[in-house]
């Protein structure tokens, strides 16, 4: 397969791919929030229902940083 395009495109694509590794960090963060919620909920099930809102807020904030890496990837691919 012939390689097309110039080295700038190659750099953009590699950079976009590298930026997506940041999503792994967001995945760890979301898993951490959800796992800790679950362990807390199993210790005190009566308090669990009142904290689901906090669970989703925590997940949303942890996810925000994965979104930034996604944003960087998008910018590299389409905005440059």
């Amino acid at each position, binding site marked *: *397969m*012939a390689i097309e395009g110039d080295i700038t495109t190659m750099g953009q694509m590699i950079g976009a791919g590298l930026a997506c590794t940041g999503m792994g960090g967001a995945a760890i963060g979301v898993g951490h929030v959800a796992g800790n919620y679950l362990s807390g909920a199993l210790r005190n099930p009566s308090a669990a229902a009142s904290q689901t*809102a906090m669970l*989703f*807020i925590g*997940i*949303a904030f942890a*996810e*925000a940083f994965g*979104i*930034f890496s*996604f*944003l960087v990837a998008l910018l590299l691919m389409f905005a440059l």
Partner: protein
Amino acid sequence: MATEESGLQIHPMDQFTVKPLFGDGPLMWYTPSNATLWMFFAVLSAVAFLVLGTRHRSVVPGRAQMAAEMAYLFVRNMVENVAGKDALKFFPYIMTVFIFIAMANILGLIPTSFTTTSHIAVTAVLALTVFISVTVIGFVKHGLGFLGLFWISSAPLPLRPVLAVIELMSYFVRPVSHSIRLAGNMMAGHAMIKVFAAFAGVLGLGAFVPIVAISAVYALELLVACIQAYVFTILTCVYLRDALHPSH
């Protein structure tokens, strides 16, 4: 991929193209496009869900009325618990946003339909409306005291300027993360379904594996559609709480 014509052809992003509904003229802001159509359907189903659902207003609610009442109480409790009792006067707007996003997300899951919320342009408007109105509400209610949101009085004094800069940055990044979270989740899920569908197209008899996978992903996407509407709404409530009670 470009060299082999008969091989795997995946165009997962094609479904997000905005096309004019009639003809292929240029796309202006007034052109009716598929985005307009599906946004209209979202509004229509919201009306059907809430207005037609509560049409009879019986004491013993039927299924439709039950669902509409549950959605109403769900958002109302969320606003009251997260943003406080004095935020209830903003409840109509938050309910509107929730129902619109939920309907647009769920309608986008219909095959060959168009997901309006997968476009950052749509979600950015929703997020910017929240961001600007929340900022205005904060300044109207508290005047310059709203800036106390950035001056964390519980932190040690030398740390406060540093924290103020960080808080200020995180405040202005809010509409970005608020909008891209919704658009990104919608876009990624739909693109994933499309990729699996392309696998099913070339596998012949082995296609049942990706079809089972699509079904599972589709169920997950239904969940994500509702959760993302919920997350968008609850973050709106959190921002509203910050505006109404800025002191830490």
